[in-house]
């Protein structure tokens, strides 16, 4: 089980800040999130990314370990 943390628009889309999910790869997580949370999450993921082991990743093949963060597109500045 991976701890999935949601931030900003991703937390709004999921209606929660975190949950535990059984997912092996980023691609699997992406499919799960879109199925579970619909268009709002699909919009976040379209230009967003995952943070896996401290690295921002857009690679669906990336394996997921103990924790993954769902990051909407950055909007600093």
């Amino acid at each position: 089980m991976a701890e999935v943390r949601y931030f900003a628009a991703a937390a709004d889309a999921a209606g929660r800040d975190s949950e535990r999910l059984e997912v092996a790869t980023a691609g699997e997580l992406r499919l799960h999130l879109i199925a579970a949370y619909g268009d709002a999450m699909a919009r976040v993921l379209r230009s967003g990314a995952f943070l896996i082991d401290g690295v921002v990743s857009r690679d669906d093949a990336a394996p997921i370990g103990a924790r993954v963060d769902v990051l909407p597109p950055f909007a600093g500045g």
Partner: protein
Amino acid sequence: MGDRSLGLIDERPLDRAALEAFVRSSADGAVVVFEGVIRDHDHGEGVSALDYSAHPEALGFLERICGQLAEETGLRVAAAHRVGALVVGDVALIAAVAAPHRTEAFTACAELVQRIKTGVPIWKRQHLASGATEWVGL
């Protein structure tokens, strides 16, 4: 992060003088300081306020960006990003670079701002004059 770069994330108003003082040296003839300021409009709509939030590791991202640019350019680099509830006129970002000559200072400061905007996990929710709110960048 070495002694040539500085990154800060703060809920309090940013200290421009401290960033300028950090990058200045007697070898530098140019100091460029960029301020990103909350404006009262976006995509044709009135904006009243912005809520900024940062990932818990955002500071590490910002520090790495400042450190890498300092290493690449050999210049002193500092940046501070504010988070929390900001209103029109508040300063959200300060980026400062000092260089012997102006061209390299302008170029490095522009590059610094660009890397911060694309590389630091910070988000903002915009409050529109209409009363609606929206996440910027979605």
